[in-house]
């Protein structure tokens, strides 16, 4: 049974990202030492968009990197299917940088745990802050986001999907019925 509800449309996503961009600049009192790291794959497109918005506001293009967390997952031994490994590309040092980690949906927090472990392997950031488009709750680890597009209380039996133009051709956030 097709049971799909749009909870955020293209304009909604864009307004949220604009607000997050301003919040990032406000909280960090400018863009000095700021870098963006997008988590594959959804987080990468969102990080690119934030980079553009910050450039528009402050006139500075802050560095952006791409992180694949597969090698740091805590379920590799349990899962008989090996997730396809993507490329990590962080072409700058993270030492003493304020890292804005970007992902599309914050759920159990396990992805963010893996991402933080990976970041630490790249250097010693001054600070790591987390930006997500959707926070759907159900945390299994003590992790919270610093910048949230939309809080979306959801049932564990629902799937929250963030569709982005770069990947699927449309910008929308949907809740899909029983999974």
């Amino acid at each position, binding site marked *: 049974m097709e049971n799909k509800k749009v909870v955020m449309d293209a304009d909604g996503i864009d307004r949220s990202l604009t607000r997050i961009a301003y919040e990032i600049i406000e909280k960090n009192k400018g863009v000095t030492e700021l870098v963006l790291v997008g988590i594959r794959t959804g987080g990468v497109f969102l990080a690119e968009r934030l980079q553009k918005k910050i450039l528009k506001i402050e006139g500075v293009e802050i560095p952006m990197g791409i992180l694949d967390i597969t*090698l740091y997952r805590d379920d590799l031994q349990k*899962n*008989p299917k*090996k*997730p*396809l*490994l993507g490329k990590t590309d962080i072409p700058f040092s993270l030492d003493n940088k304020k890292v804005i980690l970007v992902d599309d949906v914050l759920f159990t927090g396990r992805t963010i745990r893996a991402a933080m472990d990976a970041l630490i392997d*790249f250097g010693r950031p001054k600070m790591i802050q987390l930006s997500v488009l959707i926070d759907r709750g159900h945390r299994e680890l003590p992790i919270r986001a610093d910048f949230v597009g939309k809080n979306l209380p959801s049932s564990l039996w629902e799937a929250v999907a963030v569709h982005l133009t770069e990947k699927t051709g449309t910008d929308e956030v949907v809740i899909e019925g029983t999974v």
Partner: protein
Amino acid sequence: MKLAKKDLLGIQDLSVEEINLILDTAESFIEVSTREIKKVPTLRGKTIINLFLEASTRTRTSFEIAGKRLSADTINISSSTSSIVKGETLIDTAKNLEAMNPDVVVIRHSAAGAPHILAKAVKQAVINAGDGSHEHPTQALLDLMTIRSKKGKIDGLKVAICGDIAHSRVARSNIYALTKMGASVAVAGPATMMPRYIERMGVQAYSKLEEAIIDADIVMMLRIQLERQNEHIFPSLREYATYFGLNRKNISLAKKDVLVMHPGPVNRGVELAPDIADAPFSVILDQVTNGVAVRMALLYLLTGGN
């Protein structure tokens, strides 16, 4: 995605999709080796035994580094220090190693088929690191990876493989690999080093080096196995170098953007003139770098998940 296999025994039984999966995964692993901290926690708590019953520096070191960069514990066993010298059979050695619960056994053996026997005897993943004159699948995979990253494709390229084709597991694995991926393969070597009916493997065979390398995109030179000199398969090194050595003159027959490859160790001045081995179009050291990534990819794809 996962390789639908317990072991990696040869290229012959890999599909094009599986080869592509290994190469794509390996490309993502390249980055790990460029980090300041060259280690990821992926295979923490896994044990890899490198059972090298034949001499090797490159392959053994490469497997060991690959395992360590994935945080696995790697143990090396070489023939001189193993119970094989006390007369233990391969199966008994394997059964004893199995009893210590490793996760992967990497084996190099002078007998063709030894990894296959081992794979049947133990429940762990077995990786063939070279068996006699049969196959050397990880070498062929790292060669494919090097070609793909330098040329952007493999399909439609012309590859010449030259030297001791008959005794070369590198040649055999590469012929399987390259023809599967759509390259056309020419082989050349002295008659004593050419297997009969080699054309049945889907290659063009030539008795002169020059004929094979005309318009080649890739020239892959094989190591002349000096230890075989007393088998009288070639009269002298000088004669071999004259007729089957790659040099500044005959390389000009190949395409302008030709790449020269060699599985190592190189006999300078025999199969490769020194200036060719060091030329900018020689990718011998890229092959070694890619070897670590290919082996990391295989260890990742063949372990875990029950």
